[in-house]
């Protein structure tokens, strides 16, 4: 764990992870924030590789980069552009104070604690081991997790889906479009990033 290549990998990945996370704080556009989140997640996947947890690393890329970030981008695209700023609330100063205290406490615990005899052993065949323990030792949590995912799936669909009759946002304008009275620009519904466009939050309703 002390050769040069490992050092290089660790520090580069740590910089990537923390840099991406900090850019989420700074960036003013929510879509950029999600892209920075992806960078941070890739850095964490790389750190898993340095810890020789390759199964977790691949799962991290598969779920966070391939699914969760895309889901977030979709949700952002479904709300109009006025809702895409990424600024701070009023309580950010006291929140910063709290976070600073938490950071001092956790860093102190992480660095100062005697973690006992440090082993340096990596699991081999993690996918097989994790799979076997999931269906033997952790069968009950596994089943509960399955139920949770199903419930989340059903719940998310039930929440996000609109009834056909009372869709408040677009149904009226679509009806008008069908009657040939007005025409709506599809960009009002899902609009690209135009630099200086007045906010259109809720005007289509």
């Amino acid at each position, binding site marked *: 764990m002390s050769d040069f290549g490992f050092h290089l990998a660790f520090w580069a990945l740590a910089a990537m992870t923390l840099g991406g996370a900090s850019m989420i704080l700074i960036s003013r556009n929510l879509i950029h924030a999600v892209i920075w989140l992806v960078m*941070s997640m890739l850095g964490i996947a790389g750190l898993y590789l340095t810890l020789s947890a390759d199964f977790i690393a691949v799962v991290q890329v598969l779920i966070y980069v391939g699914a969760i970030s895309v889901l977030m981008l979709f949700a952002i695209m479904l709300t109009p552009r006025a809702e895409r700023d990424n600024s701070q609330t009023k309580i950010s100063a006291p929140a910063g104070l709290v976070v600073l205290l938490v950071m001092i406490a956790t860093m102190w615990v992480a*660095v100062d604690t005697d*973690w006992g005899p440090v082993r340096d052993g990596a699991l081999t065949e993690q996918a097989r081991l994790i799979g076997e323990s999931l269906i033997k030792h952790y069968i009950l949590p596994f089943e509960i997790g399955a139920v949770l995912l199903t419930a989340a799936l059903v719940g998310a669909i039930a929440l996000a889906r609109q009834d056909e009759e009372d869709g*408040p946002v677009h149904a009226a304008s679509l009806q008008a479009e069908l009657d040939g009275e007005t025409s709506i620009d599809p960009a009002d519904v899902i609009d690209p990033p135009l630099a200086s466009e007045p906010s259109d939050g809720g005007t289509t309703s």
Partner: protein
Amino acid sequence: MTIGLEHYLALGALLFCIGFFIALSKKNAVGVLIGVELMLNAVNLTLVAFSRFGSAEVALSTQVFVVFIIAVAAAEVAVGLALALVVYRNRQTISVDRTTLLKG
């Protein structure tokens, strides 16, 4: 200097705090979700570090824990984003400091 457990723990703590700050201070509901995701990832990183450097009997259970956390995080994001959509639909905003219906 060798890179050991402390480095990963410190990195995880820093990442957790950045995520915590994002979750506390962002106006946008999706921004808050991003912060929560970062916090969960920091915890995952810490767990995997313990799986590598900790005692041998936790090596497997920590990784199983990480798998569970990732599953729960995926469910949480799906429901959270659906909630954000519903809030937007009803209130025309997903800014967390403007959805103040319960504030007297």
